């Protein structure tokens, strides 16, 4: 197919890509915390961080220094090993999920650079043909971070937090999977590149117009899977202190945070590529710019919703998932199937 035209993907290129993803996404995730604080502040008519650097831009650096130098506390009766590896599971699965997401276009390193000159760096680190499912699977595996963290820390808030993790992630995985099944049926492929190709016809060919229900369902389930506000039950301060993160401090807590923001970016990328036209040019705007704008809009939507809407109760969460969203998703799939057959 058209992949044969491209230069060969070497292992060096993949490793470089992985390093780029790690570096860029962790920086962007850090910047996401700044953005979140700023946007929430503006919506509450506050200024937000202002004192570290111009407009508080260096707040990330200050927070990073603080997190790195804080004492790493392990509670007395906690299961030390599991307690210590749990945050890295969250961060690792979030970044592994990004391996199947196209981030930045392909490029070849110029020849004049020593050692690495001429290496082709692909846009996707691991171009497997079940990309969407892989991302979902890795996000499903990401549930172990909060789960093990809560169970290992010998704290009742922790165990309530991890119980909520289990029910929330397990339930909403179903909705995520079913909601993107209808677009997958239309495209006939699980690769994000094929999704992009499907929507080349400009604004009118976006998947949103064909599958509005699936888009809304995916957004709702994506909010739940990334633990964003209307479904922010895992670490709802009013009810369970910090949930699974109650006993964590320093960089281990920071890893949960980075994982959460990386997951937010992943969900934004999937929504932008699958439903909102991907990285095709829109009129006169270049594709790389428009995809960044779309991802930024979905990210902003998460912050906007956090500023506007209240939490829901855990029983309402389950009610919403199993009695509302899942039937709608199934009906959507059935209707899509009928329309495709006719």
């Amino acid at each position, binding site marked *: 197919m058209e992949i044969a035209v491209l230069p060969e993907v070497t*292992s060096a290129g993949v490793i470089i890509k992985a390093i780029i993803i790690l570096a860029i996404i962790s920086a962007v995730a850090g910047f996401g915390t700044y953005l979140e604080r700023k946007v929430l502040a503006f919506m509450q008519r506050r200024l937000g961080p202002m004192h570290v650097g111009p407009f508080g831009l260096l707040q990330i650096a200050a927070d990073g220094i603080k997190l790195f130098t804080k004492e790493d506390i392990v509670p007395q*009766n*906690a*299961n030390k*090993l*599991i307690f210590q*590896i749990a945050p890295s599971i969250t961060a690792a699965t979030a970044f592994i999920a990004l391996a199947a997401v196209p981030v930045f276009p392909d490029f070849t390193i110029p020849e004049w650079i020593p050692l690495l000159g001429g290496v082709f760096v692909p846009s996707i680190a691991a171009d*497997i*043909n*079940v990309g969407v*499912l*892989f991302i*979902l*699977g*890795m996000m*499903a*595996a990401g*549930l*172990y971070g909060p*789960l*093990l963290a809560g*169970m*290992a820390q*010998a704290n009742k808030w922790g*165990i309530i937090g*991890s*119980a909520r993790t*289990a*029910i929330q*992630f*397990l339930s909403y*995985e179903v909705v995520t*999977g079913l909601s993107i099944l209808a677009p997958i049926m239309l495209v006939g*492929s*699980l690769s994000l590149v094929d999704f992009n190709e499907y929507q080349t016809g400009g604004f009118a060919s976006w998947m949103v117009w064909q599958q509005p229900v699936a888009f809304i369902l995916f957004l709702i389930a994506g909010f739940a899977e990334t633990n964003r506000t209307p479904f922010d039950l895992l670490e709802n301060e009013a009810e369970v202190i910090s949930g699974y993160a109650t006993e964590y401090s320093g960089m281990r807590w920071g890893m949960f945070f980075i994982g959460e923001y990386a997951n937010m970016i992943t969900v934004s990328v999937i929504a932008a590529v699958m439903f909102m036209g991907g990285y095709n040019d829109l009129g006169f705007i270049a594709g790389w710019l428009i995809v960044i704008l779309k991802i930024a809009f979905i990210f902003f939507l998460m912050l906007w919703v956090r500023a506007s809407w209240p939490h829901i109760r855990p029983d309402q969460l389950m009610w919403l998932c199993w009695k509302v969203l899942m039937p709608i998703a199934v009906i959507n799939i059935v209707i899509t199937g009928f329309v495709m057959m006719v």
Partner: protein
Amino acid sequence: MYEQIAFYLFSVLIIGLFLVTVLTKNVLYSMTSLAAGMVLIAGIFFTLGADFLGVVQLIVYVGAIMALYAFAMMFFDVTKDVKENNTNGSLIFLLGGLTALMFVIIMSAPIMSENIQALYPPMAGVTNPQAVGMVLFTKYLVPFEVAAVMLLVAMIAGIILAGKKMDQSLTTEDDVIVEIDILEEDEK
């Protein structure tokens, strides 16, 4: 070469992790190592080129089944070790070893006789999910449908067992009164 390195790495890690699962006395350790082993099995699927199966392994075993185990674990105090009262350790070791040996012999017998032959060899130009779908809906159609019906039966049974008082809400006043009435009746 990379495939071989990956295969041996994954195999050693899987065996090691599953040994931890069996041998440890701590519930949390055994659960974590089981989940990690499941992830690595998905890794073996990926090295074989069975992307779809690998992803399904991730979603179903790691994401769903192990999480349900974890849910059951929440009833225990996972920070304490489990007290096992084995009376005869050597007998268990012997039986377990024999079972494992038998399993290995059964599984490796076709390879020894070099009789192994793919009934549905991979077709060119067919992606992984499509291949799985073709096999599933042609040769294994009946078992697939039977399994689906069985799962449906299990689901309905589960709902009926768990949902006896499902239509009562504790959030409205009238329902609380109803609930109190029910409790009083139970006491009688």
